[in-house]
């Protein structure tokens, strides 16, 4: 399995990000936040609620330019970025398939997507409108859209939140399947430690607001060996390294 495209790591170096609320109160969301995700690596951003994880992703996605500092996205290949948010954000007036194809560059619009739709269990739902999907299916469609673009880097913001545990677990496995077929540098926000341990090569642990990096937790073990026994060992050593987190 060759990591595709990216030869430059994802490098984040945000000195400061401050929000000014409507009442003029300023809220420091990020302070000296710096970390790196190596090429082809799946990293998780783990931190308490409200610490600034979404804010970080929005900056990296180019949606928020009002901050001081810098970052560098992986380059190579398509040079594209893809994102899956907590809300699937599919266009309700376009079918599942149209939603996926619209995200592709013009030259790839007609590309064969059968394999991707099959893997994600969406084969029979390509012509449905998002209103006809359950939340779990809509999330899968959002995953399909992200992977179809063959991005150089993939950002995920709690893509499995507010699903029942069984559905979430199935989706995690689906995510791993599509991701392993083409390992892309990925950064996923979560506050579910088990999820982070199951999916990632490295966990970036954030402190309370203003967010900065508390430390890194590398999970070197290949994912297929992460059985329940191993997971509880990983949990224990994580708690030893970061007492009081999650």
């Amino acid at each position, binding site marked *: 399995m060759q990591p595709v495209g990216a030869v430059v790591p994802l490098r984040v170096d945000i000195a400061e990000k401050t929000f000014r609320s409507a009442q003029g109160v300023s809220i420091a969301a990020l302070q000296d936040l710096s970390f790196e995700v190596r090429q082809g690596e799946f990293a998780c951003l783990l931190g308490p609620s409200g610490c600034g994880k979404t804010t970080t992703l929005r900056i990296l996605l180019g*949606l928020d330019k009002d901050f001081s500092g810098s970052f560098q996205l992986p380059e190579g290949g398509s040079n594209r970025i893809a994102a899956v948010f907590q809300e699937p954000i599919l266009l309700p007036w376009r079918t599942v398939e149209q939603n996926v194809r619209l995200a592709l560059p013009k030259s790839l619009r007609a590309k064969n997507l059968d394999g991707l739709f099959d893997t994600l269990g969406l084969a029979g739902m390509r012509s449905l409108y998002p209103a006809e999907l359950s939340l779990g299916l809509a999330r899968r469609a959002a995953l399909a859209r992200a992977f179809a673009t063959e991005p150089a880097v993939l950002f995920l913001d709690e893509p499995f939140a507010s699903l029942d545990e069984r559905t979430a677990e199935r989706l995690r496995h689906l995510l791993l399947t599509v991701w392993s077929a083409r390992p892309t540098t990925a950064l996923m926000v979560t506050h579910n430690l088990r999820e982070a341990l199951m999916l990632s090569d490295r966990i970036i642990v954030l402190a309370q607001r203003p967010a900065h990096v508390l430390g890194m937790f590398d999970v070197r073990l290949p994912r297929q060996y992460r059985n329940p026994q191993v997971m509880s060992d990983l949990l224990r050593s994580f708690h030893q390294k970061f007492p009081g987190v999650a």
Partner: protein
Amino acid sequence: MTAPDTGDRPPGAAADISSQSGVAAALTPVLTVAVSLLGLCLLWGLAANAWPSRAFPGPGRVWQVLLAEAANGDLFYHLGATLGRVAAAYVVAMVIGSVIGVLLGSHRSADRFFSPWLVLFLNIPALVVIVLAYIWFGLNEAAAIGAVAVNKIPNVVVTMREGARALDPNYAEMAAIYRFGLLDRIRHVLLPQLQPYLAAASRSGIALIWKIVLVVELLGRSNGVGFQIYLYFQLFDVAAILAYTLAFVAVMLVIELLLVQPIERHATRWRRRPA
């Protein structure tokens, strides 16, 4: 206006039964309308019989005039002229009004600056705009259509400004992340969100526009329904005036039924959910 369509179709075996009751359910309102209109004609006929006068012809007389005008081709010529002006003014007003409305709705400071202009234009009487347009630009087709459009544009701007304020930024951000081109953004992200507002502006727009078009024709054109009504006004021929008016109302209703409603159904098909 985001309520899901209630005309949902149960799948499978129930389809036959439900399509029959569906036809009946669709026919009932049509029948009601027909009976209601018939009642109005009857009342009109009775009143015309009770007070016979050249200035108050009955429905029979109006129908005769209508047939005569249709037979010699005048009716279709003038209906066509008016319809063409309505269509042109509608397109001009919707395009210009939507662009201005969306710009104002998405730029707060521009909105604050231009709001007083908008209020001013909303309150200028249609007649003034028409007269000024004819004085400044001459008695020509462009001035006529322009004057009608200018009367309608402020209404479109107000509606589309609301639409732009209601745009969901999530979709725009998604489009930015996946690098949608400008045309894709307009076609797949912007217009579908604005559709209910476009529909509202269109509805009120067509009703207003055709009434103003008649005035424009009366004041400075030599064809069209407005021109004919003015002509028959000078001849005091009420039957002909009513014949032209009813013919044009009928045309507008047919357009609403055969064009506007199907387009709207198509544009909102994604809201339908299987039962």
